[in-house]
């Protein structure tokens, strides 16, 4: 049997897309003509909410070391939240403080001329696909200016990806790790300086901080990465890939895949779970805090207690693998959520909610209570820092 025959055997519902096409086209042509006759141009600009000063009501902290032998409080069944949709949250999203993370982008100074001690976050420049911006604790943006930096990478599978990764910021939010073709560039935000390391791999697209002195670099199609010692530039082959979280005294790998349902702790300890960390289109390390592990999950078939044919964010007990809570998210953009960090014991997640809006809406997810706290709106490519705007 050929691929074509197998594809044909996938049972899809009958479509009716041809039925209205002619009438829609007719209306479209009429509208164009009317527009020409009227010669009208209407521009509507909507800018929402502008609190320039961010007084954070939460602080983010780096993930502390987990204690895999501890367990969280027992639940008999996972907390399954109502589907998170843009429509349901439209009023809250409209009230969201958009300026918190996106104001004054136009006035971003070069990082080398205006360095920062610690980043609140780093974000892809919405006006320049190849650019990266850093938000300092003073509430001002800097444009990352590194001579010779390759701004986007052909990942060797036909896709081009920006070098600013969700995992680019170091745990102390003072450095940026930017993967490069056959290399890695680490930018010191405190003085704007940078250093390049040679790392084989023309399609290096992942850079994850293992600790203060080591960054894991991996290619799109590689299972494992290369560990770069930032002190001397030495390289070592790593057993870990882009779905590994490096904690103070252990690691946790939770790979992508429908059936990849094992939490693999360091030293070969595996914990089976009914959940997965498929990551949508983007493999990312899980968030870990006090033995709660958070991933981006797809429920494809036989979801058990979870709604099948959905994807969203899942919290599991890192010791037992038991699913604690699941937050299904709408699928409006065909993209997945990003796992940013922690607000106390609440994971901070970025989700694409509205078809008409680019970027991600950021929430702190109180999975125990099944509640969401809106935080802000950021670009599609964002790395979450530990800094807070204080001025």
């Amino acid at each position: 049997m050929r691929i074509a025959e197998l594809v044909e055997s996938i049972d899809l519902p009958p479509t009716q897309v041809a039925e209205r096409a002619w009438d829609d086209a007719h209306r479209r042509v009429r509208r164009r003509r009317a527009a020409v006759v009227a010669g009208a141009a209407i521009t509507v600009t909507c800018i929402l909410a502008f609190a320039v000063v961010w007084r954070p009501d939460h602080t983010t902290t780096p993930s502390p070391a987990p204690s895999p032998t501890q367990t969280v409080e027992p639940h008999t069944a996972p907390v399954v939240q109502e589907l998170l949709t843009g429509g349901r949250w439209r009023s809250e999203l409209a009230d969201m403080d958009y300026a918190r993370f996106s104001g004054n982008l136009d006035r971003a100074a070069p990082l080398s001329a205006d360095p920062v001690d610690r980043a609140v976050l780093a974000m892809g420049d919405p006006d320049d696909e190849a650019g990266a911006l850093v938000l300092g604790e003073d509430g001002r943006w800097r444009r990352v200016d590194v001579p010779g930096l390759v701004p986007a990478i052909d990942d060797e599978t036909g896709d081009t990806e920006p070098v600013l990764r969700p995992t680019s910021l170091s745990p102390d939010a003072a450095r940026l790790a930017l993967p490069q073709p056959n290399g890695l560039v680490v930018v010191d935000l405190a003085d704007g300086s940078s250093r390049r390391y040679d790392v084989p791999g023309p399609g290096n697209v992942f850079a994850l901080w293992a600790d203060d002195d080591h960054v894991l670099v991996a290619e799109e199609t590689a299972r494992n990465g290369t560990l770069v010692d930032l002190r001397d530039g030495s390289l070592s082959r790593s057993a870990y890939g882009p779905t590994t979280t490096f904690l103070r005294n252990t690691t946790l790998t939770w790979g992508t895949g429908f059936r990849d349902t094992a939490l693999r702790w360091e030293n070969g300890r595996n914990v089976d779970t009914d959940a997965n960390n498929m990551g949508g289109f983007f493999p990312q390390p899980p968030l870990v805090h006090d033995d709660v592990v958070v991933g981006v999950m797809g429920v494809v078939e036989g979801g058990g207690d979870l709604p099948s044919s959905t994807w969203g964010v899942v919290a599991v007990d890192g010791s037992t693998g038991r699913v604690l809570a699941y937050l299904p998210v709408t699928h409006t953009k065909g993209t997945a959520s990003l796992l940013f960090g922690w607000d106390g014991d609440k994971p901070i997640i970025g989700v694409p909610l509205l078809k008409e809006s680019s970027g991600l809406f950021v929430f702190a997810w109180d999975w125990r209570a099944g509640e969401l706290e809106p935080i802000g709106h950021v670009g599609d490519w964002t790395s979450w820092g530990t800094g807070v705007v204080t001025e």
Partner: protein
Amino acid sequence: MREDGRESFETWARARQQTLVRWAYVVTGDYQRAEDLVQEAFVRAATRWDTLRDGNPDAWVRTVVFRDNVSWWRRHRREHLTDEPFGGVVPDAGSEAALVLHAALARLTRAQRAVLVLRYVADLSVADTAETLGVTDGTVKKQASVALARLREIAPELHELLEEQS
């Protein structure tokens, strides 16, 4: 856009809609967006049906569907892997092999899925696939090779099938 073209357009579109949506679904993994892509392509085809009907509307609409998908993807940029669950509809795969293929395709990039669909489902030549996607022949060959290799890795159950396609 002459009204006397409606019947021929709708006859043509109805005959192609299911196949095009199926291809778009396999590439996007999202049934709703697959329908959106095909519907938009049909609307655009209808606006130029006067000239398109005497040419090669199949190739034209196929190109629009696949390139629109690439454009959408580039705008939203966050699709790199692949493990996205397939859309709002979970298909009844129909066979174990189809189920495996379905899961495996979900782990390819969109570009890889597009090449596989055009080369091995739509049965286009390398040159026609390249023209449809707006890339070079070399890119198509490379994408096809990478995609088949990846399928072998993640779905060894499909060994015989993949050997046949190589």
